[in-house]
């Protein structure tokens, strides 16, 4: 199975490259054994499926439950939607907490009260921790209780496909409010379940992110000190750059072409940094999470999903921005998801409401140029 394995074997931390670790990664397989790469494509879902997966166009990955790329796409979606849940739930709670202070003359809308209550319950249940595992475990089985609420707040990890359809079949709220998941738009993950391409727990650790080469570089900083995280990210860059040069030097023409055309080093770098960002967020280090996510982004095409810029990266950017108080900036990241993931509109609206709330008492400033 082609997996992304940047995990290093060298026990001692060192700034020197650890080629033996990276040589075990799927990137090395693709570049050094193009023929094996080709046969793998044929055996595990087909070229179209792998191509779509590489583009991070997960919803376009064809295949059923036995298709490796389809299962990987589903697993990616589980993480992605877990991060969206993190962004939205944080925004929702902050919005509800600040409502009275900012809007004392306007009663909290029922949807906000009820949604915030539900989020708080889920957080107490530990949904926010270790999100992707929880999301994967819950997505297909939990019935949830959203259907019993007088509002339509659908949380991706807790609403089954059947329930989602039931919810979408009846009018639920004043559409002008529009500040939560739109129940008429099925979640991507639910779509994956509906097609039978459910993620399996075994797929998740290997497929979602590249493990950080800790053995070569030492563990990532445990504090939320951005400067320390910057130094660590620079070490990763140096490590990957040096390895990439050696990989290219030893590759055949076909392998070299794949390395370039598939942007493999850039993809590996982005996944590694995305992984660090998610980990930092999970461990209450939002400033570092934001830094890693910004570093992971391909800035030259920062508005679109691409092989380097995955939906997960935009989601972690949004979640980290919300967690650090940069709510307006979170909307920039979420905007990239607006068209490919219509269900993200609910998240965008919630985060947007929070951004507006935070500016209710401010004077705007404008400048020319």
């Amino acid at each position, binding site marked *: 199975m082609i997996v992304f394995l940047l995990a290093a074997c060298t026990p001692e931390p060192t700034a020197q490259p650890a080629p033996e670790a990276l040589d075990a990664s799927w990137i090395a397989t693709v570049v050094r054994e193009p023929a094996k790469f080709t046969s793998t494509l044929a055996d595990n879902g087909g070229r179209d499926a792998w191509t779509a997966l590489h583009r991070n166009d997960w919803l376009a990955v064809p295949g059923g439950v036995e298709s490796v790329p389809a299962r990987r796409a589903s697993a990616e979606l589980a993480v992605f939607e877990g991060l969206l849940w993190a962004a939205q739930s944080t925004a929702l709670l902050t919005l509800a907490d600040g409502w009275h202070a900012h809007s004392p003359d306007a009663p909290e809308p029922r949807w906000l009260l009820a949604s915030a209550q539900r989020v708080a319950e889920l957080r107490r249940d530990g949904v926010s921790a270790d999100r992707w595992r929880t999301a994967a475990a819950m997505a297909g089985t939990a019935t949830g209780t959203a259907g019993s609420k007088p509002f339509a707040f659908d949380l991706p990890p807790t609403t089954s496909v059947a329930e989602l359809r039931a919810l979408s079949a009846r009018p639920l709220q004043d559409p002008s409010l529009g500040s939560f998941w739109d129940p008429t738009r099925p979640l991507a993950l639910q779509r994956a379940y509906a097609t039978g391409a459910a993620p399996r727990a075994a797929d998740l650790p290997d497929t979602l992110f590249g493990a950080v080469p800790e053995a070569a570089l030492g563990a990532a900083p445990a504090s939320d000190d951005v400067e320390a995280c910057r130094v660590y990210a620079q070490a990763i860059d140096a490590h990957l750059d040096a390895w990439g040069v050696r990989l290219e030097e030893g590759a055949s023409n076909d392998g070299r072409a794949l390395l370039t055309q598939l942007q493999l080093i850039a993809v590996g770098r982005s996944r590694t940094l995305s992984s660090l960002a998610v980990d930092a967020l999970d461990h209450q280090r939002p400033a570092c999470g934001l830094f890693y996510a910004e570093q992971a*982004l391909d*800035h030259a095409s920062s508005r679109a999903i691409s092989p380097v810029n995955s939906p997960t990266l935009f989601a972690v950017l949004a979640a980290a921005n919300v967690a650090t108080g940069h709510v307006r900036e979170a909307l920039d990241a979420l905007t990239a998801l607006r068209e490919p993931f219509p269900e993200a509109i609910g998240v965008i609206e919630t985060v947007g409401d929070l951004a507006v709330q935070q500016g209710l008492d401010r004077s*705007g400033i404008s400048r020319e*140029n």
Partner: protein
Amino acid sequence: MIRLSARSAMSLTLLLVGSAHASALRYAEDQAPAIINPLFTTSMAETRVSELLFQSLYADDHTLASVPQLAESGELSTDRLHMTVRLRDDVTWQDGTALTAKDVVFTVKAMKDPATASTEAGRAAFISDVREVGDRAVQFDFVRPELRPEDKLTFKILPAASFPTSPVKRTDPFRTSPIGSGPWSLVKFNDDSSVSFAANPAYHGADGRDDVGIAQITLKEIADKNYQAKLLLYESIDALVRVLPRDLAMLESNRKVELYPYQTNSWWYAGFNLDRAPFNDLKVRQALTEMLDIPAMLAPIGTGDTITGPYVPSSPFYNHDTAAYPHDPDAAAALLTAAGYTRDAGGWTKGGRKLAITVSAHRALESGQEVTINLQSQLQAQGVEVDVDFLDEAQWRQQVWKDRNYDVVLSQWTFDRNEDIREQFHSTGTRNLADLKDPEVDRLLDAARDAGDPVSRKSALRQAHQRIHDDAPMVFLWTLDSYAALSTHVRQVTVHPFTFFTWAPEWQMQ
């Protein structure tokens, strides 16, 4: 390949000769501020310099929450109509004199005085009166109840003693010898159009910090934006405050440089003068809009998103249901015909007069010449006679803003995260350059201002977006990716999304 003009090449040589000073930060601006006075700030370059030199009562912390800066504490009355702000007692101006309540009162009154014509007047409009309460406290009276006035008390405070005459004028000597209380102070305007700043030894930060990590800062005016990035790679400068989108790929592949996304709320427009025929005719404005292939104008200058109204697509106020005017020459021709124009071999005419326009743009607008010429080419191909006029700062200020002597301006607006377009589109707005007067737009902007909750404000401004789009006072063009780029020698960098240098006292040079 980067092509340099002779003048640019000479400047580059001079910059390279004078390069590399490890304890100093050198950053590039397209144009150095002509004056330094926060009461008259119009450009982002001036905003950034003000951030180096001046402080405010409250400022953003790293989570963008308002925290005391010159203020020590604030007490809001129960009716929310008054606030007493107590000042810190350890703040001095760079000349050593103490900052007192008198300075705060002076600043607010100068902002509000119509004779000052401060560009910041709108930021003090919520204050009905202000008075000293002893040396270290100020009482503000508000026009209406304020929930969190500290969020608005973020304008820069000036030293009253530096302005012996009233009213304050742009031409006061302060403009070239400003005195502030901020982390840096002005050293001099240099002959090469650079501006030098040095750490202010009298600085006392609200966070207890008495010094800054970077001793000297130099603003380098590098008008030719095409080679700013190259200078950063040559290590002749340490920071670019705004990277050309087309340079992003080159910079992000260089490990000596880090990119910082920071400011997102800018958009370009081609604005009509609604007081002047034929632009007072909606059909003509819509026709000119539909003649333009906006994505084709955007493509040469980099990545970005086209827009349909006065917000960027990521804004919570952007109305995604608003459809863009199509690029449709036939429809444009029909609109002009309906407006009374006829077309012959010489182009469009009405009453014997050609449809002829002049497009004015500021010389310092990045890629402005490229866009203007593209716009000219597109309109001329469809029978509209177009002249272009590139204006320097003084001409722009006089001709466009003071005399309003223009047909169409190409420019860009940048907003902080509140994205308040009231000044640009309300009939009473001080920056309503087009002179749009639409009672419905006014009503919606008033409703947004008065909205007590985010949902109501969002709803009103999305409607305003649609209405302004329909009025077509300008051709809404695009928003570009905004990045700063800094050398990795600069450490501990965090960039404020609008004012840029707010947290620069923490930066260090390696």
